[in-house]
């Protein structure tokens, strides 16, 4: 009994330490399936999430890069983010709102943020107010190693996805990783 309990707790510790929980995403996205067996990279990714309604969200990893990114974004949009706000931002995940809303959002409580996320407007991508391009650009300035990951819903209309490709390509990113779920390879 003692030995078994020891092993059990050893395993428990192992699993607790290695588990990485799925990042919080404000919208549910049903990814398309593919036969590709390649796994998504562990780090250095900036992910653009496109939901069914065509809203666009942005997420990238690494708290220090995120702080740097927010500072640069603030400079461009003439918004002064405090250290506290940067700290909050670095611990958050997916962002989907105009930059002007961000300061207010960062000062809310967690429950207020979750409430807002349910109906978040997404990052503007029109050519007159192309904020996604700024997110991508400053993210790449903060960490040139970032790789583009696109997570779209099966039923997202192609023009929206194409617009996202175009914005990435404007910023000289030509290589993408599409997040997919696994499907059995047919025998050919």
């Amino acid at each position: 009994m003692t030995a078994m309990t020891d092993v059990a707790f050893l395993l428990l510790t192992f699993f607790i330490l290695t588990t990485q929980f799925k990042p919080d995403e404000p919208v549910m996205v049903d990814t398309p399936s593919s036969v590709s067996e390649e796994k998504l990279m562990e780090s250095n990714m900036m992910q653009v999430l496109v939901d069914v309604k065509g809203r666009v969200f942005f997420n990238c990893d690494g708290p220090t890069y995120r702080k740097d990114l927010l500072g640069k974004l603030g400079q461009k949009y003439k918004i002064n983010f405090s250290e506290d706000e940067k700290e909050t931002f670095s611990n958050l995940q997916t962002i989907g709102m105009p930059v002007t809303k961000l300061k207010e959002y960062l000062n809310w409580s967690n429950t207020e943020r979750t409430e807002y996320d349910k109906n978040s407007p997404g990052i503007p991508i029109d050519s007159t107010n192309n904020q996604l391009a700024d997110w991508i650009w400053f993210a790449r300035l903060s960490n040139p190693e970032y790789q583009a990951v696109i997570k779209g819903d099966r039923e997202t209309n192609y023009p929206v996805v194409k617009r996202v490709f175009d914005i990435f390509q404007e910023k000289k990113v030509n290589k993408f990783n599409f997040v997919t779920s696994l499907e059995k390879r047919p025998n050919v």
Partner: protein
Amino acid sequence: MAAELGGDGGGKHKGGKPKGKKQSTRIDFTPMVDLGFLLITFFMLTTTMSKPQTMEVNLPSKEKVKQDDQTKVAESSAITVILGEFGKVYYYEGNTPAVADSIKVSSFAASGGIRDVLLAKQAPWISKIKAAKSKLPNNPSAAQMEALRKEISGIKGEKLATTMLIKATDNSKYKNLVDIVDELNICEIGKYAIVDLNDQEKAMLTAKNLK
């Protein structure tokens, strides 16, 4: 350490008078072990499912290339696939449609769909790849795997191997794009480009009332 299952830890002697209260030093560990296993099960189930798959796609660079430097696609090896509404697929051989009737309608069906067309077109290279794969010994070393990978990408990149042009209409869904890139992987096609429809194709689709 041992877990005691009975409740008889109070130090009472059977039948005899209780000799004062003797506190037991033994604790019942069973609930803790139960909880431990419960947590293990939870963590095991959550970890294994969390890593999603990814599909790598390269888009042609938007930078202007000089006319002379552009890669010419041989008309005979090219196939253009157009993604339409409701998962419909239109295709024609070559990279410019000769007449509107050369555009054929197909689907993503597992048999009788676009896959059959691609498999037929790429067949000589698929058999070459199969031959290369069959030469591999049962327990290949990392170097052998690497050599095979190189050989396969060499075969896929041969001058006459199929080149696919993927053009998505505004009525298609993201899923259709992923599906067609998936067909590329299934049919071992290495040369492809995701590009926009040209005016000639748009006109032909409208003429044939295809969306």
